[in-house]
């Protein structure tokens, strides 16, 4: 990477909204249905049909506008964007041109230890296009129009991003917010979030932007990162070799890890936007705009910063908690119940619980675990009723059944033995079975004490109190 240059990045993010119906007709909005089974004359663009705008699309877009601190244009309209391609049966896409529903916002993102503010130029509503199937066993291209009319919001950022890391953090924050608001499934792998990346480079300290290239088909967080690194490097090489960058659209091929020229500025699309005569001006009332603002949940970046400030958490842990709304909500409920350290709750959620969920490829909501039970279990550890080792068994059981930890401990006989008289026999047996370790300890290798305590814990089936056992082991060796 050439250090004399700075990379300048802007992202256009398209997110499909998870409304029940499409944007302009009452066909169901669902992914994965049989081809052309969710279509009507409106989605197919038959002559004489009239689009009718879905109220929920407007509300979802306004919510996103609030989340990204935008001005909401309560009086707005829709425009036709003309292009000729078989994925679009009308030969125009209904979008918004000069008066987007939301504009002039920003998003604060966390990159390493820094908080960076990224400008959001606009958010507008539009319809998605259909899906083309290219298959050599057919003489032509097949068109599936189920996706025609699926509602989209397009979120356009200012060219404020300066590295692939920042772009990735921005995109991750956007998708997390979509999930927090519950307005999109936000799955890049299913194409419900798609991204066009604009990249230019300029010498450090330059005040004007370099010529930018747009990359299409960037379909995962990793691809965004790789595409930016590749494109910045390509542009720097062109400039270093004395060339100039031409404005062009390039297609990102993630498998080959390179971008390919699609079209240069000379044959740039001429979209001939004009107001859609089938759709009138529409109004979102001030009351509605305020009500939608009031309905927003606490957003991920705010949550992260609150956890760091209020609970003295590491930023990386706070971020891991807030990146999943389900996990953050669970954490907040547990902390609200009180009676244990928030950091301990976080450690369980990010440690053993995350590991179990990950191993089984399930979500927190797929388990029987409740914040109440987790807090009770932590309290039992704090009081010395159960050991950390036994707690892991309790946790597994709490995730599988809705039994309270108290009941599990009783049923499985997991209560910790703090009474040293009950542990004497165990300690004696462990020392007798491990004469070599005892010798080693006596000759100064004191770290074998950990091994001996471990053996005692094992022999007590996790029920011994490790601190008590340690004291007992050391005392017993002294007496030998």
């Amino acid at each position, binding site marked *: 990477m050439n250090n004399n240059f700075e990379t300048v990045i802007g992202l256009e993010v398209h997110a499909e909204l998870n*409304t*029940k*119906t499409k944007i302009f007709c*009452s*066909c*169901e909005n669902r992914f994965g249905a*049989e*081809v*052309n*089974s*969710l*279509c*009507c*004359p409106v989605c*197919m663009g*038959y002559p004489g049909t009239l689009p*009718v*705008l*879905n*109220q*929920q*699309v*407007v509300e979802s877009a306004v919510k996103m506008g609030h989340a990204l601190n935008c001005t909401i244009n309560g*009086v*707005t*309209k829709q425009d036709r964007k*003309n292009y*000729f*391609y*078989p994925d679009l049966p009308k030969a125009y896409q209904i979008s918004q041109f*000069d*008066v987007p529903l939301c504009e002039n916002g920003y998003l604060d993102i966390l990159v390493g230890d820094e908080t960076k503010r990224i400008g959001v130029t606009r958010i507008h509503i539009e319809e998605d296009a259909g899906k*083309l*199937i*290219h298959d050599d066993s*057919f*003489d*032509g*291209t*097949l*068109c*599936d*129009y189920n996706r025609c009319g699926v509602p989209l919001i397009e979120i356009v950022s200012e060219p404020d991003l300066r590295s692939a890391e920042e772009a990735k953090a921005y995109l991750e924050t956007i998708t997390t917010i979509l999930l927090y608001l519950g307005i999109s499934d936000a799955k890049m792998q299913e194409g419900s979030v798609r991204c066009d990346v604009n990249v230019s480079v300029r010498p450090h300290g330059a005040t004007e932007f370099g010529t930018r290239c747009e990359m299409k088909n960037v379909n995962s967080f990793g691809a965004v990162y790789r595409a930016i690194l590749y494109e910045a490097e390509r542009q720097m090489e062109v400039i270093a070799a004395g060339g100039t960058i031409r404005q062009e659209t390039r*297609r990102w091929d993630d498998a080959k890890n390179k971008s390919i020229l699609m079209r240069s500025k000379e044959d740039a699309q*001429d979209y*001939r936007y004009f*107001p859609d005569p089938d*759709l*009138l*001006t*529409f*109004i979102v009332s001030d009351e509605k705009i305020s009500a939608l603002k009031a309905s927003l949940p606490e957003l991920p970046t705010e949550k992260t910063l609150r956890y760091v400030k209020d609970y003295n958490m590491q930023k990386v842990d706070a971020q891991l908690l807030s990146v999943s709304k389900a996990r953050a909500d669970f954490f907040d409920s547990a902390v609200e119940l009180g009676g244990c350290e928030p950091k301990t709750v976080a450690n369980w959620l990010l440690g053993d619980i995350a590991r179990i969920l990950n191993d089984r490829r399930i979500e927190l909501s797929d388990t029987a675990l409740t914040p109440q039970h987790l807090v009770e279990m932590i309290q039992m550890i704090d009081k010395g009723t159960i050991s950390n080792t036994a707690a892991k068994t309790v946790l597994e059981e709490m995730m599988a059944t809705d039994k309270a930890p108290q009941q599990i401990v009783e049923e499985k006989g997991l209560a910790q033995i703090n009474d040293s008289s009950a542990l004497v026999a165990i300690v004696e047996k462990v020392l007798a079975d491990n004469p070599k370790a005892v010798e080693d300890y006596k000759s100064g290798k004191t770290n074998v004490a950990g091994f001996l305590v471990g053996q005692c814990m094992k022999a007590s089936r996790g029920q011994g109190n490790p601190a008590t056992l340690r004291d007992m082991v050391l005392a017993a060796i002294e007496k030998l």
Partner: protein
Amino acid sequence: MEIDVKHIAKLAKLDIPEAELGKMEKELSSIVAMVEKLPELTSKESLLDPQNTMQLRPDEVKPSFPREEMLKNVPETAAGCLMVPKVVE
């Protein structure tokens, strides 16, 4: 007013013989000149019409059309899809 007839023809997917370009340009120029006499729009707001707004639709699912019905008007179909001449991305 200069009219690029070739560019417009390309966007409209029309084949216009070279010999007719001059005539077309003249005709289109006079049409544009006529349209330009319309009163000028003063701002972008004037394209909005807040006195004449539309009602939005509640988000309620209604059955889609049967696929066979939808595809009746389609010249060529295959595997439940419309088939068009091969296009490359």
